């Protein structure tokens, strides 16, 4: 189970609205490399993970990603607060506005709604951890792209920089997790069997 804590992991206080920027940043909530994909991926992969230490990593990083979803949703909410209809029409936010007003729906910047089709839970710990390493890098690159777009918005820049740094830490921890799982396998052939499904041959 989970317990909600009524605070953001890192503060978000955006003083000026910017609807155009919101249309880009929403992608880190519901886009292909966004935070909802991250939490869903890690929290789903836990059940087939054979190493209890790595289950801890997936649980704790997956939980942190839930907090990052809240930060992104907060950034989008504050960027679109009290917009006039003229600002909505001129900013390119009108396509989002027509379906969701200024409510929050996890979707990509392109308007594609959040889908688990952009992530995997293969039931094989090595494959899953390789995907997690890639996922952290892809999220980091998306944050790099967002940082270029918000270079004149210090309040947004600051929060995005924090989220970008977390991707680096998670990448490191997933790298260690992969090593922990591999240390428990046949070093001559990591892919000889799926340790979460196949029985280990007695000679290995």
């Amino acid at each position: 189970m989970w317990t909600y804590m009524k605070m953001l992991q890192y503060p978000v206080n955006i003083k000026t609205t910017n609807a155009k920027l919101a249309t880009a940043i929403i992608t880190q909530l519901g886009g292909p490399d966004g935070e909802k994909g991250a939490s869903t991926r890690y929290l789903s992969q836990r059940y087939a993970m054979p190493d209890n230490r790595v289950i801890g990593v997936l649980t704790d990083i997956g939980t942190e990603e839930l907090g990052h979803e809240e930060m992104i949703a907060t950034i989008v909410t504050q960027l679109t607060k009290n917009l006039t209809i003229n600002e909505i029409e001129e900013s390119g936010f009108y396509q989002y506005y027509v379906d969701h007003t200024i409510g929050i729906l996890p979707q990509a910047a392109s308007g594609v709604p959040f889908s688990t089709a952009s992530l995997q839970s293969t039931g094989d710990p090595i494959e899953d951890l390789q995907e997690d390493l890639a996922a952290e890098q892809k999220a980091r690159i998306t944050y790099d792209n967002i940082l270029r777009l918000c270079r004149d918005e210090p309040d947004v820049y600051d929060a995005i920089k924090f989220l970008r740094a977390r991707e680096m830490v998670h990448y490191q921890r997933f790298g260690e997790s992969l090593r922990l799982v591999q240390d428990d396998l046949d070093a001559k052939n990591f892919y000889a069997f799926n340790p979460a499904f196949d029985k280990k041959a007695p000679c290995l």
Partner: protein
Amino acid sequence: MENLSKKDLMKVIRSTNFAIIELALYLDTHPEDSCALDTYHDYHKKFKKAVSIFEKKFEPLTVYGVDDENFWTWGNEPWPWQKECDC
């Protein structure tokens, strides 16, 4: 810590909370690192103290922290995405 303003006490909670999350992730893959474990316990002690003072003086941070015996105060103060929130 008892005399800190709401904003400053929240700063203590947020920073110790961050240190705990960061140390927990590290300890997940390095459970035998006793130095990191000591640091974890130091931050955890400070965090628990700050949360307990905050919930007594200001507002609950979780549903386990409603201190008022007469009123349900969970929704009294702004939520984290609202601009007037200090959290």
